[in-house]
């Protein structure tokens, strides 16, 4: 009995640093931000009044928030399929026997993942600028464009989506590669003996066996995409005309530029609910498969 309580105390002692850190830096801010989402707290002035659900109801009448929701959904739906498909194809290609210098390709594709998003965004700003690389190339084909790609409401979100796909594929390619390498070689050999084509092997062996990896990639990419911020912050600031405004960026602007911290916190919890619902749906889908 004594040994057990001693054991429990030792366990607690080892866990204590983490528990304290969790309470101070995670639990407390989470609870506090829920509380201030029901107030008119500005962030600058310590005074705050309870406003009930006013912040939450006001959000659904806020045109910019609704636009930010729409843009975020377009971003999620528009990037995830491309990121996933291109990553799988690249992983299969690198994994195949045709490709030499595999390490070089892996490192090359992974490079954007270890670069800061601020650096990536700065490079792409030069490509997309009014007098940038892309407009120069278009001019060679006789297409004159006097506006930067990030400065036009018709192209800004698309431009960021393309950059994001480019920046993300390396990381997911490496994850898919690890999934591919766990598939036994014998399966492909017996399929070849049975006369299966390469596409048969891909759709009937590769794809079903990397399904857990596929679901993992889609799940984490979905959460990451809903939280898109750095790209918007460094490249467009949500403009022009809110065409690239996303939920997290609008939350930041509302809290730190317009000093409506209570309202911004309500936005954060709407995002939490959206991500939670989507994650639950994905988990259900996973459970039904396995």
């Amino acid at each position: 009995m004594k040994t057990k309580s001693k054991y429990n105390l030792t366990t607690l002692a080892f866990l204590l640093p983490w528990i304290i850190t969790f309470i101070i830096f995670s639990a407390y801010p989470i609870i506090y931000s829920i509380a201030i989402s029901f107030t008119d707290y500005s962030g600058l002035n310590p005074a705050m009044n309870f406003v009930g659900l006013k912040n939450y109801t006001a959000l659904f009448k806020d045109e910019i928030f609704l636009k930010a929701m729409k843009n975020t959904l377009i971003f999620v739906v528009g990037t995830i399929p491309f990121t996933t498909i291109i990553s799988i194809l690249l992983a299969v290609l690198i994994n195949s026997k045709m490709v030499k210098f595999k390490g070089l390709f892996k490192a090359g594709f992974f490079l954007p993942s270890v670069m800061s998003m601020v650096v990536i965004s700065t490079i792409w700003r030069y490509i997309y600028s009014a007098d940038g690389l892309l407009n120069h190339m278009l001019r060679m084909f006789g297409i004159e464009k006097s506006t930067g790609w990030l400065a036009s409401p018709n192209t800004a979100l698309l431009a960021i989506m393309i950059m994001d796909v480019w920046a993300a594929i390396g990381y997911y390619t490496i994850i898919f590669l690890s999934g591919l390498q766990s598939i036994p070689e014998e399966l492909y050999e017996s399929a070849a003996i049975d006369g299966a084509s390469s596409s048969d092997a891909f759709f009937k062996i590769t794809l079903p066996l990397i399904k857990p990896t596929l679901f993992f990639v889609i799940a984490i990419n979905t959460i990451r995409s809903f939280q898109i911020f750095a790209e918007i912050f460094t490249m467009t600031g949500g403009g022009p005309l809110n065409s690239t405004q996303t939920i997290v960026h609008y939350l930041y602007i509302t809290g730190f530029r317009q000093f409506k911290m209570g309202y911004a916190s309500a936005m954060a919890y709407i995002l939490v609910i959206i991500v939670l619902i989507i994650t639950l749906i994905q988990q259900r889908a996973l459970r039904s498969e396995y």
Partner: protein
Amino acid sequence: MRKKALLVFMLVGLTLLSFGKTKISVWQFMMDDNLSQQVKENFEKANPDIELEIVQLSWATGFDRIVTSIAAGTAPDVIELGNTWLATFASQGVLRPVDDLVDKVKDNYVAWNFVEYQDRYWGFPWLLAPRCMYYNLELLEKAGLDPDNPPKTWMELLNAAAKIHALGPDIYGAGLCVGELYSPYQQWFLPAVWGNFGHFVSPDLKKATLNSDPVIETAYYYRSLKDYALLGKESELAEAFGKGKLGFFFAGPAYINNIQRDYPETIFDVAFIPKPRENYGYHASFAGGEVLGISSQTKHVDEAWRVIEYLLGEEVAMQITRTTGEVFPTKVGIENDPWFESHPLHKTFLEQNKYAVPFPPLAEANKIEQIFTNVVEEILLTNTPIENILQKYNEQIQALL
């Protein structure tokens, strides 16, 4: 024994001396580490009872650091703010009103309208950054224009931009800012409204007047200039100007040194911002600038004031001008400093400052700045009728007043 006693005495003395000092922290954007260190040493030498801590903030994250520190109750004693932020911070009770201190130095400095909010003073005008018109001398000459006489009116500018634009597919008459916060409205649109004797808000700051005739006329003109313009972020336009692809663009003095350093082959000059007509309006510019405020959280108002008085002084402010070339001191008579004789482009900016107008002191200035950015982008990037645009945003501004 005697040596030991002396040592103990010295240690105790030094400790007491350091405890006796008042620590004043200054969070600022304009002074780099070298200058900050120099300022700190000189100030502490003259004020041995104060320990000065100067923190340099970056433009990317500085604003957030200030806001977070205020929220946490750990605000610095002295804060540098952009003049457009002042009214918002004052309205939130973040700054201490300084009417009592202003009287001591009011006659020595200009731009007190930077720091007024609801008939009180909330800080001290520190540095000026008006906007001017940059123009490429070579392109003007190629287009058959007189490079010694840059456009002085809107129509002259429009005609000159059209002629320069006709020089080639890769050449643009002018550069107009879009695609980022602030620069689209600050660099010229709002100053153009002011120059046309217009305002977006009534003098008592209670009624939005964005749909008034002078604003409508300015918006129509701005849209007509678009036909000859490259549209992009300010930094993109500065780069295109440096490469010799833009006839005109509007910005603060920050680009003079950059363009001269990065594109030495581009010959350019700066001039006052054009006014509506020869016999109507004025060369209005946006009065950008930096102010120093005392945090309402500080317990050391007197010491904070002594630091501010030192920073406002010609020695420090002029050193910032020499180091950055981006801002000028607010000191009365600063134009007589010999530095401006050897920097004629900067001198033009300083002269332009006489026609510079600050953003109205509104508590909701930050939100209205966002709206103004949208106004300009909608004028330049869409074909929506001008009256509809101005009416829509007029209602949004009115809701915030």
